[in-house]
Every structure is written in structure tokens, then in C-alpha cells.
């Protein structure tokens, strides 16, 4: 009623106002067109009819304190004017966003609670700019983040990565690639090209596979292929024996490796493949690495693992590149939820 009187007395103040109340209890009135720029306030006014008088002031979310409200209203006041060019808006935004990090966080939070998306975008971008290009120490300092990760956690990005067979496969491929690269570089650097013949006995190799031998770096490529072929056949039959042995021991391996089974199924087994000694050695190395890593491959049946490794090698050689087709399958596996089935 007094408002109506006021309207009559001062006709030039015909602007309508919206009443807003912040969490601390203070109430203020804001020009309607400015306040309505915020979707949350707009909703309250239109859907619930609030905000028309002091008694029916719109209660703003807790995350909006008076200081933030005033900033937000400044933003709205500028942007709700239809005539501004994009350039003007941009320069306003750039000036507006210059504030210390603490206030920036407060503002982001307040804008988010009022659902003011353009301002949330602006502040988020500003926060991203602060993070960008800095090392973790600096970021922790700026934002007062606790340094509560163990060293181990820092090195291994996600806890359950190692459960994901795709990641395991990826790690294996990656390790193999890096190994190849290192060895190629070693060959380049080697002054004298000695003939390193791998003359470990079958028993040595067995114990190696079983994780007895810690030294995985001593293996070099051999130049005498004939010897290798014999060795390779030996190793193959030996590893086949190994796998059948293990297969009988761990029937449960299959169950937990269902997704790996799918992976296995997708690959066409190639009988009588001619892997080079290098490849087989790499298999062993790869397996060795897997054993080294704690608890990773307990769930994959070793038979399956051998098979996967062999198929990967084959594939790699045929395509002359290591990742692509396999990874395409793997990536697509992640998206499709196929029913679990076992190979016969």
C-alpha cells in the first residue's frame, strides 16, 4: 500500500522492484529487470509469485552472501541491457573477473546456486586459467589443498585401474613399446655388436616365468635364428605345458576374467604362428612385469594371458603398428555391455 502511494507520488519511479533476502537476514530491493536475469529468481517470481514486497522477499540460497549478491547484481545489470556489443561485453567480463581466488570461488558458488550459467562459465574459466600451466605444488598452495595422497597413489592414477583388463592390456602394450624403443636405442649406442646368445636352460626360463628371477634386463636379441627357432619351439611347448598346468589349478580364473574372455574371443587364434625369439621373450618380459606388479593379474587366467599376448604380437606385426585395431576393439568393448559368455 505504501508502495502504491509512492508510485502515485513519484511517477518517474515507475520501475518495479524485487525484494531479496540473503541468508543473514538482510533484505534489499533490486530493479526487476536486473534481478530477473537470474534464472532462480525468475523462477521464484513467475512460478511462486514471490518477491513483490518486503514480507514476501525471495529467500536466496545460503551460498549467496550480501557481498556476492552485490557483485552478481552488477554483472546482471550490465548484461541485461540488450544493446551492448560482444566486444563491450567481453571487456566488461575481463575487468569484472579480476579478483582474488577466494572471492572467485565464492562467486562461482553463489552464481551456481542462482543458476546463472554465463557467470558460472566465466568464473569457472577464470579458475581454470589459474590452474593451467602450474605444477601441483603451486596449485596446492594457491588453493590450500591438503597434500593427502600417498606417493604410491600419486604414481598410480586410479585405484581400480588395475582391475580393468583393458588398462592391463594397455599397460602391457605400452611397456612392450617402451622396451622396444629402449632396445633400439641400445643397439644404436652399442659400440661393439656382440653376439648375445640366450643360452639359459629350460629350467632357468621356467623359474623366470614363475617369478624367481628378478633380472629382466639381461636379455638381448640373438643373431642366430636357427638356435632360436629350436628354443622358441621348446619354450612354446613348455609354456603350453605351463598353461595347461595352471589351467587345471585355477578353474576360477575363467569366471573373473569374463571380459577378458570376450577379448580373447574376438581374436582369431592363429596356429603355428612364427613368432621371433624377440617376441616370445617380450611375452615373458611382459608376464614378468605383470607378476612384479602387485595383485594385478591374479584374475586373468594365465592361459588366456598367453593367448592374448601371442595374438597381440601377431596382430602388431601384421599391421605394422601396435595399437590400433586392438585398441579400437577395446574401446568399443567399454561402450557395449555384452552378455558374459565363455569360450569353449
Amino acid at each position: 500500500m505504501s508502495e502504491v502511494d509512492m508510485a502515485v507520488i513519484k511517477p518517474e519511479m515507475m520501475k518495479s522492484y524485487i525484494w531479496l533476502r540473503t541468508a543473514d537476514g538482510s533484505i534489499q530491493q533490486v530493479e526487476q529487470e536486473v534481478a530477473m536475469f537470474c534464472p532462480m529468481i525468475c523462477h521464484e517470481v513467475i512460478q511462486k509469485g514471490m518477491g513483490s514486497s518486503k514480507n514476501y522477499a525471495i529467500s536466496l540460497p545460503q551460498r549467496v552472501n550480501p557481498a556476492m549478491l552485490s557483485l552478481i547484481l552488477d554483472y546482471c545489470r550490465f548484461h541485461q541491457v540488450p544493446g551492448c556489443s560482444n566486444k563491450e561485453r567481453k571487456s566488461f567480463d575481463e575487468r569484472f573477473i579480476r579478483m582474488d581466488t577466494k572471492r572467485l570461488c565464492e562467486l562461482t558458488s553463489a552464481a551456481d546456486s542462482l543458476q546463472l550459467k554465463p557467470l558460472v562459465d566465466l568464473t569457472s574459466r577464470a579458475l581454470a586459467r589459474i590452474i593451467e600451466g602450474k605444477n601441483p605444488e603451486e596449485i596446492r598452495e594457491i588453493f590450500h589443498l591438503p597434500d593427502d595422497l600417498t606417493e604410491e597413489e600419486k604414481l598410480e592414477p586410479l585405484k581400480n585401474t588395475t582391475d580393468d583388463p583393458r588398462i592391463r592390456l594397455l599397460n602391457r602394450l605400452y611397456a612392450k613399446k617402451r622396451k622396444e624403443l629402449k632396445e633400439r636405442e641400445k643397439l644404436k649406442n652399442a659400440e661393439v655388436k656382440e653376439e648375445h646368445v640366450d643360452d639359459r636352460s629350460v629350467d632357468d626360463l621356467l623359474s623366470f616365468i614363475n617369478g624367481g628371477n628378478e633380472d629382466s634386463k639381461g636379455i638381448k636379441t640373438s643373431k642366430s635364428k636357427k638356435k632360436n627357432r629350436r628354443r622358441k619351439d621348446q619354450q612354446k611347448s613348455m609354456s603350453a605345458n605351463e598353461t595347461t598346468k595352471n589351467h587345471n589349478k585355477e578353474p576360477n580364473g575363467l569366471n573373473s576374467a569374463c571380459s577378458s574372455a570376450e577379448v580373447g574371443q574376438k581374436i582369431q587364434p592363429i596356429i603355428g604362428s612364427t613368432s621371433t625369439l624377440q617376441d616370445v621373450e617380450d611375452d615373458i618380459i611382459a608376464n614378468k612385469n605383470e607378476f612384479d606388479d602387485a595383485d594385478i593379474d591374479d584374475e586373468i587366467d594365465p592361459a588366456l594371458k598367453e593367448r592374448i599376448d601371442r595374438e597381440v604380437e601377431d596382430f602388431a606385426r601384421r599391421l605394422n603398428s601396435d595399437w590400433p585395431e586392438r585398441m579400437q576393439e577395446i574401446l568399443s568393448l567399454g561402450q557395449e555391455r555384452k552378455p558374459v559368455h565363455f569360450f569353449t
Partner: protein
Amino acid sequence: MSNSLKLSGNPICQNINHLPDAILHHVLSFLPTKEAVATSVLSKRWHSLWTWVRVLDFEDSPSCETNEKQRIDFMHFVYRALILNRAVSLDKFRLNCDIIHGPSCLNAWIDGAIRKDIVQEVDISVSATQKSHFLKLPSCVFTTKNLKVLKLSKGILIDVPNSMSVCFPSLKVLHLDFVEYANNDSVSRLLQGCTVLEELLVNRSFRDNVRNFIISVPTLKTLNISELLEPKNLLEYFSHSYHYELTINAPNLEYLEIIDLESLVHLESVFVSLIKANISFHGTGLFQLAKALCNAKFLFLKWTCCGNSRASLENASFPLFLNLTQLELHSGFEDWDVIPHFLDNSPNLEVLVLENPIIMRNKQECFPKCLSPHLRKVLCRGFEGCEHELKMVEYILMNARALELIEICSSFDMSFESKFALLQKLSKFPRRSETCQLTFK
């Protein structure tokens, strides 16, 4: 959802750690994925935040081309990020890398990302040298249901055979930046699949394999097409002239920009809602173009005309440019009598800009019959002071009722004396408009 309002009694988020997860994901989405992943070592809270980010932005370093270790690291990183990303759908996927990674690898990445249902934008840019084969995209790129913006640049080959289905039901913006095309039909089929396309930007290169570039998109509102010539030598340039064509059929176009000094330009539909057109082209057929452009409010025309333009001028009738308020004409080096036609038919013209020597040989058609009563500003650049130019300026000064400013910039190679003489002549011309100012540079 929000699990970060830890401090009791004080919900005000003074620290970034107090912001809800959703906002942190949003913040991380503005970072290149490499940096977003790096935040996983900040603290427990941040350990897996990056996996929910709805943007994947991969860019390899320039040294990947030569340094194999970096290449392998990058490959590993991209695969890992793709696998570990948990967002149900992505807002944006951006890939900027060298073709050295190999087509199977690149396509595996693109395939992996697109399977996640990208709802906003895909931006793929592949650097390739002249010698490498360009990347042929996987077919899943051409059937993205929700994608709104698609940008493809550089080392990509657009090959759309008859058997491939192209379906972009939500695509509004398409940028093709110096990509290569398998043939004419690839272009047409690609555009046919864009049923709601509103903005198309094409930067063509000299060897993109398309002789006849046809753009036929009824929903198109903005079109930018440019062809940057890089012929290896003049012979190649001249041998290609007139063997290329550009055809545009987009009746709802509002903004049109064509910079194509190579092809014959055909505008097949009249643009009913045209607001602004900026056309630099080579060749005859200005009248045909004029017909399509007659609804424009702002017009910028620049052309080099080679050959017999006179015939087309006489046979066709020049359309009426009712909405035209601003006209800028840059001529080539042949004669053109188009100015009088434009002036006759633009009753609402307010601003006129003429550039480069206006050599008008046909004296009879020199003068327009009428001049827009609203013409208030005229600029002439590259003025040389020859008889016809002077006559034109005299005519304008005599007839432009509302003229406020006429600015004459003489061409560079005029001596000071001749400039001064010219100025004297110009200032003596009688002016109809009292408020008219003459500026001379």
C-alpha cells in the same frame, strides 16, 4: 551430489575445495585434458575428478613428429584417458595432432571418443605435410546423432562414397578448413546429410580435388567460402582458370562471404533474407550475381573481370536493390559500367565506397539517371583524377541531396602538384547539399 560442504555452519565456499563436484568438473573442462589429468595428484578429493569431465581435448607436441618416445607417450596417454573417462556423454572432443601417429591409431581415438555420444562439438585437426596421405575419417563421424558443431581441418580427406550414410540430424555449424575431398560427390553427399545446417565455413586449398563445388543447403543462414590459391607456378594457375566452378543454392542465406578468385561463381537462388554479402571473385556474370543479391542491406563486391562483360550487362536487366544501404565496389582492371546501374537501382543507398581506378570507357552510360535521396557518405579511394572520375564526382555532388561527407583519397603515385590541382577542381564543383563536406587525402 554435492559432497563438499564439509565445514559446519559455513556453507560459503571460500575455497575451491568447497565447491561441489559438478562445478569442479566444469572448471576442469576448460583445461586441456593433459592438465586436467595432472590434477589427479593434487589431493584425495581431486584424484578422480578428471575422469568425469565432459570434455576431451588432446593436443600433441610438435616434437611428436620426430621424437618417437614422445609419440609413444602421447599415444599411451590418449588411450588411457579415453578408457578411464567415465562421463556418460561428452560435450566436446578436440584432437589436434600430427598424422605421424598413423591412420589406424587416429581413427581408433576418434572412434573411441565419438562412441561416447558427443552432444556439442567435435574439432579434429591433423597436421600433415604435402607428402603424407591425408586421414580418412571413420564412418561413425558422419552419423553423429546429437552433434551440433563439427570442425575438420587440414590433413583430412573427406571421402563419402555412395554406400556410406551421412546423417547429422542436429548439426548446425560445419567448418571445413583446408581439407581434401575425394571428389565432387563427396561434398554434395556430406552436405545433403546436414538437414538443419545453419552455418557453413569452407576454406579451400588449391588441390582439394573438387572441380565443381556445389553447396545446396536450404536451411543455411551463414556461408563463408574462401579459396586460397597456392599454385606452384603461374602456368598452373592459368591452366586452372575457368575449370573450377562454385555453385550456391541456399535461398535462406543471411550472411554470405565468398573469396574465390579461381572458380566461376554461380548463385542459383535469390537470397530473400540476405543481410550482408561480401564477394570477391573472378569472372563474368556480375548481373547474374546481382539478381541473387538484390535483397542485401550491405554489399561488398570485389572482382577481377576477364573477358566479355559488356554482353552480359546489356542483355540482362539490372535488379532493384531496395534494401541496400551500404555499397562498396572494388573493381578489377577492366572496364566496368556497373556503378551507374547500381546507383540507378538503389533508392535507399546511404553509403557508397568506390575503390581503385574507375576507368569508364563508354561515355554514354557514364551517368546514373537518378541518385538515392538518402545518400549521405561517399568515399573514393585510389582516385586518379581522370575525366570520367571527375564527372562522376561532379554528378554526385550536384545531385546528392542529403550528402554529408565526400572523401577522396588519391592514388599513391600522384605528384603533389597534380594532387593540388585535383583538389582545386573538386572544390569548385557546385554542391546540392549544404552540409556537404569534402575531404581530400
